[in-house]
């Protein structure tokens, strides 16, 4: 893949654009990355659904109607209803809100943490780096799901808790990537000249290293979103995520509802479809953004 990465980089330099890179990326995406564009469209639809859930849905997510239980599909309930007569489409749309809010929240927390840990560990090096990295080693020795399950069952399931816990996990895992990029930037002569010009630690890290790490951070964030959303769903599936009655895709699939699914298979099918679509969308968008922003990370 090294050769393919190099071509992309050359292509980017061959047609210099007057637009800033963050605008140029989206135009390049529309032109050259059909799958990325599809992914972006799915993500956009999800975003609209998540933000506008209250306006879009005609029902409340916990609004029961015992006369309308287990409807498969009809004009009033496009995707049917569950054992309490709650509208499935409404619950899926609110579920998108959980997935996205937890996903974006956790990735935001994680990126801040990963950047801080990664840059500081790389910049100061020596003993700081050694200690921090052994801590990261220890964290990464756990299978992620076991560790997250342990923590979530102790702090208790809630939307805030899962966002923070997933954020910390995401941050620790990705601090390695940020660190390795920061390490290579640290060796450049412009850092040395900044130091010679009398810049302090804060100025060098914030004004010189951080901007150069930024594209990597964006790549880490976009490619990581699908994993975070999937992990949230796994934890909610196990009853360790966002607690009911608030609908989550993972929670809707959970074993607690298994008996009802035999009677109404759509209760299992649609949440699984929604989750797969979301993960697919974020994967495609993330892959395309990675190729456009940072060819070096291709194939990671």
């Amino acid at each position, binding site marked *: *893949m090294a050769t393919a990465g190099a071509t992309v980089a050359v292509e980017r330099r061959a047609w210099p654009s007057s637009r800033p890179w963050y605008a140029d990326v989206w135009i390049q995406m529309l032109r050259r990355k059909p799958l990325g564009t599809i992914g972006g469209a799915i993500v956009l639809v999800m975003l609209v659904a998540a933000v506008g859930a209250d306006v879009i849905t005609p029902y409340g997510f916990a609004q029961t109607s015992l006369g309308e239980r287990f409807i498969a599909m009809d004009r009033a309930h496009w995707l049917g209803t569950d054992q309490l007569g709650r509208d499935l489409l409404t619950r899926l749309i609110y579920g998108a809100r959980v997935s996205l809010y937890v996903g974006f929240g956790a990735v935001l927390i994680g990126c801040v943490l990963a950047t801080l840990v990664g840059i500081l560990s790389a910049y100061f090096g020596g003993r700081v780096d050694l200690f921090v990295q052994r801590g990261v080693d220890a964290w990464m*020795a756990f*299978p992620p*799901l076991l560790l997250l399950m342990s923590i979530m069952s102790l702090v208790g399931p809630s939307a805030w808790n899962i966002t923070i816990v997933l954020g910390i996990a995401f941050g620790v895992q990705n601090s390695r990537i940020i660190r390795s990029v920061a390490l290579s930037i640290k060796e450049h002569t412009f850092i040395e000249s900044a130091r010679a010009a009398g810049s302090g630690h804060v100025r060098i890290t914030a004004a010189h290293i951080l901007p150069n790490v930024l594209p990597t951070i964006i790549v880490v964030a976009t490619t990581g979103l699908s994993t975070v959303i999937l992990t949230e769903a796994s934890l909610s599936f196990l009853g360790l995520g966002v607690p009911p009655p608030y609908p989550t895709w993972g929670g809707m699939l959970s074993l607690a509802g298994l008996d009802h699914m035999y009677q109404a298979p759509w209760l299992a099918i649609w949440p699984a479809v929604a989750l797969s*679509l979301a*993960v697919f969308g974020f994967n495609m968008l993330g892959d395309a953004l990675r190729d456009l922003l940072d060819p070096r990370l291709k194939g990671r």
Partner: protein
Amino acid sequence: MKQYVLRRVALAVPTLILVSVMVFAMLRLMPGDVATRMVEGHGYAATLDALRHDLGLDRPVHVQYLDWISGIVLRGDFGRSYWTRQPILDEFTRRFPVTLELALFTIVVSVVIGVVLGIVSAVRQDTAADYVGRIVAILALSVPYFGLAVLAVVLPSIYFKWTPVWTYVPLTRDPLENLKILLVPALIFGVTRAGPIMRITRSALLDVLRQDYVRTAWSKGLPERSVILHHALKNALIPVISLIGLQMPLYIGGSVIIEAIFRLPGIGLFFFEALGKLDYPVVQSVNLIIAAMVVGLNLVIDLSYAFLDPRIRYR
């Protein structure tokens, strides 16, 4: 080589100590009190204090930690469950074969699917077969395995009157029945993990196919089959193997969910049930054993690289 091995082993020790401190501290510092639940909900002892004394929870935290660790290091004793008072190691060794079998079976499924699709995709690069293969890989990557597992439990029972076997039979008692039970869980878990393997096989094989020795093999007039399978694939499989090693924690983590859905009595279910009951000794010991396995596995992988590629030893 000997020096390198010693250095790597020495580096793994502090990691494991840190891991043990982490699991222990995590379980003690966070809210959630097992004693209250055992006394109030289940009447395990007359008073809270009596139970705390029984379980050793009234001792200072560092004493509890040293007790736990010294038991492991000196006597190979991983402690006992709060609820059943049974030794954890016995239960772990009883259940481990189930999880190991599931993991191995899953890896076989995902490698067979992933490597075959990867080869086809790479050899027929940019043809219809390649695009189909890549799209299948992306889709497989997107479908959550627990969603697929729930569908596999629910849908066939509605439409074909087929249900998974719910009572587990060990491999030693009836191998055929045992494989029948594990087939569906392993297929489902394996399919969803085949995506990354397919992608890495494809890209590694594409890289290798451009190398000179492969061109030499072609120009010797060897048939395609021999060039691809004997010459190119061997080198292309190195990154595949390291990917599987790196993903071992995911296989183990995922087994918690798969075992819960298909009711397989493995480590995952043991862990999940202990977690629900705040059974600290079980949670911390299982976490530690598995983390030690992961560290050990990574060590073996690193050492095998060093064995294969002498340059690594001198870095």
